[in-house]
C-alpha cells in the first residue's frame, strides 16, 4: 500500500470537455486507480469546461482530459485518458510498496 500520513487527503480535479468517450474513460480509470492506491483518502471533483470555460485559465488547462492534483502540494498535472496506470502513479507521485 501507499506510504505517507494516513490523514492526508488527496484532492483531485478532473477537467473534461463534455461527455466524450475519452472523458468517460479517464474518469473510470481514475476511479479504479484511486480505489486501488488511495482508498478512503481521495476526493475527485470533475469540472466540465463546457459548463465552466472560465475555469480553464486558472489551472492552465490546455489538453483534456487533465487531472490536477490540488493536494497534497505541489500541484501536479496528468493529461490523457489515464489509460497508462504506471504514468498516472508517477504523475500523482503515488509510491507503491
Amino acid at each position: 500500500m501507499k506510504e505517507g500520513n494516513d490523514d492526508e487527503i488527496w484532492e483531485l480535479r478532473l477537467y473534461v470537455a463534455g461527455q466524450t468517450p475519452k472523458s468517460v474513460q479517464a474518469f473510470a480509470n481514475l476511479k479504479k486507480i484511486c480505489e486501488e492506491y488511495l482508498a478512503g483518502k481521495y476526493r475527485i471533483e470533475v469540472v466540465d469546461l463546457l459548463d465552466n470555460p472560465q475555469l480553464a485559465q486558472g489551472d492552465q488547462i490546455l489538453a483534456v482530459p487533465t487531472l490536477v492534483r490540488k493536494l497534497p502540494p505541489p500541484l501536479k498535472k496528468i493529461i490523457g485518458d489515464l489509460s497508462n496506470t504506471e504514468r498516472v502513479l508517477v504523475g500523482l507521485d503515488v509510491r507503491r510498496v
Partner: protein
Amino acid sequence: MLSGKERTYVEHRLEKAPTGIRGFDEITQGGLPKGRTALVTGGPGTGKTMFAMEFLVKGATEFGEPGVFVSFEETADELIANSASLGLSLPELCDANLLYMDYVRVERSEIEESGEYDLEGLFIRLSHAINTVGARRLVLDTIETLFSGLSNVSILRAELRRLFRWLKDKNISTIVTGERGAESLTREGLEEYVSDCVILLDHRVTDQVSTRRLRVLKYRGSEHGTNEYPFLISDRGFMVLPITSVKLDYAVGEERVSSGIPRLDAMLGGKGFYRGSLILVSGTAGTGKTTVAASFADAACRRGEKTMYFAFEESAQQVVRNMRSIGLDLEQWTGKGILKIVGQRPTIHGLEHHLMSMQFMIDDFRPTTVVVDPVTNLSQVGSLRDVRLMLSRLVDYLKARNITILFTSLTQGGTDAELTDVGISSLADSWMKLQNLEAGGERNRGISILKSRGMSHSNQVREFLLTDQGIDLVDTYTGPEGVLAGSARVAREDDERAQEAALRLEIERLEEDRKKRRALLEDQITRLRSEYESAEKELEGRIRLEKLKMETIFRKRKEMGTSRKAET
C-alpha cells in the same frame, strides 16, 4: 491579330484586416487577410510579438475590432510592460473590453502524459476569450511552444490543423507567430498549416549598424510588395517603410520658389526653383553650401512655409549661430515653429533607420521644404550604392508630397567635383556647384548652375560673397587666365571704372562743344537776319520814292495836254 475575345479580368478582392501599422498596409494593399490566419516568423528579438500586439491594439482602437492575445511565452504583466515601451497602454484596453490577454503556460516538467488526449481545453479557452470581448482578431504567440511542452507530436499536429480550420470557420483574423528554424521558416513547420500569408521579420547587423527588415513571403490571393522593407520599433510603435510602392507619377507644378538669393533667382530664369523639385548644392569644404541651404530655408520660412532642416554635420544651435554671422536669423523661425532644425550624427543609426525616422519626422511636421545638409555624410553608415538608394527613396517620398528638397553634397578635394557626389546628381532637377576660384594667391567662392531642368538658366560663373548682410552674387570676369574673382576681379573692375570715367569725360567735353557751336551759329543767324531786315526796309523806301516820282511826272504831262486842248 486580335483574338476578338477580350480577356475578362474579374477581380476577387480578398478582404483585408488593416493592421494600422504604418507602411505595412501599403505593402500588402490593405493589411492581413481578413478572417484568415497569417504567420509572422523570424529569429529571436525580431519584433514578432510587437507586430502582433500592434495588430490587436490598432484593431481595437482604430478599426473597432476587439482582439485576444494568447501568449505562450510571456505573462500578461510582461506583455503590458513590454508594450508600454511602444506607447501602448494595454490595461486600459483590457478594462474597456477591447482586449483580452491569456497566458498559456506549458511546462513539460509539470505535465505527465497518460493515454489519449486532445487540446479541447485550449479551444475552450480561446472560445471563452473570443466571446468575452467579441473578438475579431486573435494572436497566438507562439503556439510552437506547445511542441516543447507536449510529447505526443501526432496529436499536436492534428490538433493544430483542427485549430486553424476552427479559426477560419470563426472568421477570426489571426496572427500566429513562429520562431525561425535553421532550415525552415518555423521550428515546427507551422507554415504547413498556415498558407494564406507569411511575413518574415529579420534583424541584421552590418558594420555594427543594426537594421530590421520585413518581407512578405507569401500572400495568397493578393498582390504584395516582394522586397525587404526596413522597419522600426520605437516608442511610437511598429513602423514599416514602404519603399518601392512609390512610382514616378507625381504631379508636377509650374510654381517657382525663390532661392533666397535674388541674383541666384535671376540666374534661374528670374524666378528661382520649381516647387517640389530636388536642388543639389555641391562643393568642396568651405564653399558655402550650408549658407546657400540656410538662405533657401530662410526664404521658405519668410513665405510662411514650414521647413525642416536636417543637419548631419552640425548641431541645430551651431547652424543658427553660424548663420547669424551672415545676417540670417533662423531663430525667429524656429521660435515660431515654422522651421525645425534636426541635428544628428549620421553614425547614430543605420541608413534605413535614418530614412525612416526622417520620413516619420517629416510626416509629423508636414513641411513644404526639406533641407539635408550634407547628404554625403550618410556615406559613413552605408556604401555609396546604399546611400544612393536611400536618398532616391527619400526623394521619391518627398516629391510625391510636392515638397521642395535641397541637398548639399560635400565634394572631396582633389577629385572631379562633377563626378563624386553620391551619385545623386542624376536625381537632381537643379544642380548648383560651389567652387573655390583659386588665383592670384587667394581663394574666392564661385557659384554656377550645372543644370536646371525645365527652365532657361544662366551659364555664367558668379562670384559668391558672404557678407554680414547675407549672400551676394557678383559677376566674375573671364580673362585670358581664366575666371577672375576676388582682388583680380576688383583690379579688373578698377580698370573698367577708369575707362568708363575717361569716356564720360570725353562725352561731356563733346557735349559742351556742341552747345558752344550751337550758340555761336545761332548768334550769326540772328545778326544776319537783322542785317537782312534793315536792308529790306531801306530798299522798300527807295521803291516807294521812285514810284512817287513816276506818278508826279505822269500827272504833270496830263495837266499840260488839257490846257492846250489837244486831241488825244
